[in-house]
């Protein structure tokens, strides 16, 4: 009898079906919507901060996130359900902090997604008013809300294809606008925006907090860890490439706006005209490009809303599967396998906020987009920082053959960097919101997140005592039922195994 072949036919077939770096890059970049970040974020940052150091802010955040990504992707190689940051916290710091992080994460993503409806309503209102259709912002927001709600219950791959097309066009337009800005420099191309003095004072924290939001989505390649061609390298390459590509786009485009408007005039121009990016394009390239840019901004904000809708739904779905929150959130659509219950929940939350803001007559840009969006930024920075601490704690117990750089040095540097960003963001939060120092609102946001984290921790402690099998599955996402079944079979009630 001949010896069995040493090559595995099954492994070979599975390897052919695995995802490479470019595939993962596709998934992570489609979660980013650069035109929204630049047209909706960068110009506002000039206005809010009153400084020209925005490109430097992006450099600092990109460097911090690159440091974070080193340890984050190293840990992702060793854990299942690496898709959600709270899973890292649960494995690194324990299940109680994990659930606390999950509550903060779900709320932050949800708030960020809902905030986009305010900006979307504002952009659509302006665009349609120019062709004689005058409707309130909330009417456009509700149309987009319905579209996102419907697409959210479809298969994720359909959404990814739509987002990929929009992203390609967006990046092309941003690069054209940026090239045009550099070609039409007001005072020549200078590096003043990268000087440390260009980013200082009370506005620094505001700039850094807004800059972080632009990168959200960089963490998504870890979702596909088990489907990656080379789990050790592919996910890390895709995550780092995502940060680098986004950083390049944001730095170049923000620098180009300064160059075109002039370092001395850009702040005043941004305050006077929130559509500065398109105004510059209109002056330089003609009104057709300006109109194209405005239309693409609308599709970009819609894509951003869809992208964050998917991310939030995925978070809620994973939590539902773990039964950490309502288990019905873990239901999928039979036909499309989309996380339908979580998606509908997010849609309902968005609808309620739009209706509430409309009824109360609140401003869609200031009170919805800025307030909710920037508040969610604080939550997400805190989440990244907690995740960085979890990575360090995870490797402190056992380095698992990872390098000293990946397991110790990079996580420590990431904690210092993200800790600094969080500190500045919180103490300068009043600048971000455009309110007086010492007023209630800036204090309220960190307190709300702290209360959420505390409630999450209390819920985890309750689960530990009352439902140990559910507690054992925390942080395992889709694989939670396996862990819970093993817990039921192997461990007596009350002994919930390791942290």
């Amino acid at each position, binding site marked *: 009898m001949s010896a*069995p*072949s*040493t*090559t*595995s*036919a*099954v*492994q070979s*077939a*599975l390897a052919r*079906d695995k995802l490479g770096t470019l595939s993962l890059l596709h998934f992570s970049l489609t979660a980013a919507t650069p035109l929204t970040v630049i047209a909706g974020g960068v110009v506002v940052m000039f206005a809010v901060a009153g400084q020209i150091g925005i490109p430097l802010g992006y450099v600092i955040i990109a460097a911090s996130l690159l440091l974070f990504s080193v340890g984050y992707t190293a840990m992702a190689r060793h854990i299942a359900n690496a*898709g959600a940051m709270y899973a890292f916290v649960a494995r690194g710091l324990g299940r109680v902090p994990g659930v606390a992080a999950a509550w903060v994460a779900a709320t932050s993503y949800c708030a960020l997604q809902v905030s986009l409806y305010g900006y979307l309503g504002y952009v659509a209102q302006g665009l349609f008013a120019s062709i004689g259709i005058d409707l309130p912002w909330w009417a456009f927001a509700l149309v987009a809300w319905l579209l996102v709600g419907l697409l959210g219950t479809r*298969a*994720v*791959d359909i*959404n*990814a294809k739509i987002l990929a097309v929009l992203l390609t066009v967006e990046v092309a337009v941003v690069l054209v606008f940026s090239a045009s800005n550099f070609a039409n420099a007001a005072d020549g191309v200078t590096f003043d925006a990268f000087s440390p003095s260009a980013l200082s004072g009370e506005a620094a924290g505001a700039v850094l907090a807004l800059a972080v939001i632009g990168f959200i989505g960089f963490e998504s390649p870890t*979702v*596909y860890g*088990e*489907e990656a061609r080379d789990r050790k390298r592919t996910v890390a390459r895709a995550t780092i490439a995502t940060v680098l590509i986004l950083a390049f786009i944001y730095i170049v485009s923000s620098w180009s706006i300064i160059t075109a408007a002039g370092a001395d005039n850009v702040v005043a121009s941004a305050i006077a005209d929130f559509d500065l990016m398109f105004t510059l394009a209109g002056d330089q390239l003609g009104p057709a490009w300006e109109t194209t840019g405005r239309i693409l901004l609308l599709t970009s904000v819609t894509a951003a809303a869809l992208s964050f809708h998917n991310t939030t739904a*995925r978070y809620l*779905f*994973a939590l539902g*599967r773990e039964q950490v929150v309502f288990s019905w959130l*873990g*239901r*999928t*659509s*039979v*036909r*499309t*396998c*989309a*996380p339908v219950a979580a998606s509908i929940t997010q849609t309902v939350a968005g609808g309620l906020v739009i209706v509430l803001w409309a009824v109360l007559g609140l401003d869609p840009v200031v009170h919805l987009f800025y307030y909710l969006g920037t508040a969610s930024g604080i939550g997400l920075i805190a989440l990244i920082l907690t995740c960085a601490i979890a990575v360090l704690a995870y490797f402190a117990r056992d380095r698992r053959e990872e390098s000293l750089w990946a397991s110790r040095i990079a996580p420590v540097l990431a904690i210092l960097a993200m800790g600094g960003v969080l500190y500045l963001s919180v103490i300068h939060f009043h600048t971000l919101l455009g309110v007086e120092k010492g007023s209630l609102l800036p204090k309220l946001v960190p307190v709300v997140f702290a209360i959420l984290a505390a409630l999450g921790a209390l819920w985890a402690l309750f689960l530990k005592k009352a439902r140990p099998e559910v507690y054992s599955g925390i942080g395992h*996402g*889709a*694989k939670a*039922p*396996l862990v819970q*079944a093993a817990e039921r*079979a192997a461990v007596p009630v009350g002994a919930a195994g390791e942290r």
Partner: protein
Amino acid sequence: MPDAPTPRLVYDAFLITAYHDFYKPAVAPRVIGLGLGAALLAELVFSGHLAVRSHAGRDLVLAEPRGGPPRDSLGLWLTELVQGEPDHLAVPEWLEYLAISDTQTKTAEHMVVAGLMVRGEQRSRWLGKVQVTYDAADALIAQAPLARLRRYLSTMDRRMPLLDAFLLALTESVGLSKSLYSQMPSGAREYAEGHLRVLPAPLQAIRGHLTAAVADTAITGNL
């Protein structure tokens, strides 16, 4: 006869996951592949041709040499694949492999031979491509597996056979709980849970990994 049993677990799984009618939709294509893979593995474990053993935290699939090879080509194909592997692979890897190996078509072809399905061909008007379709030879027989499970759940008067209990677990795992439990009397879920809790460890492992694989599909959107 609406609840006439079809002869194999994998056929029942096909009719539950891939066949759609007024009462029950078909599930997503990848989930069909995962469900059929789980059913085929479970069938061969039940017949003693394969075994699932836990080793170092992994649920490995092993060939069991007892009693000769399976008599049908579908079972033989998988058993020979398991035997041909240089290292034992885990259940998730086999489910993944079976999901991408067009197990749906292989099973449908078997069911055509068994007289349960009818093979048809449709030519696309625009592309000119020929698309192969599989329709149930008898709509009532196609509904039989789900009807049988629902009968157990509605009467709750007798113990479910082991393979039907696994089929029930599979139906839940692929996301068809609503079709299963809709309009069932109170206590049906507890009755089902009572059966699922006592599934043998290998079948529990296959069930758990199927549930996890379906959830992974929902998260990654890899259809």
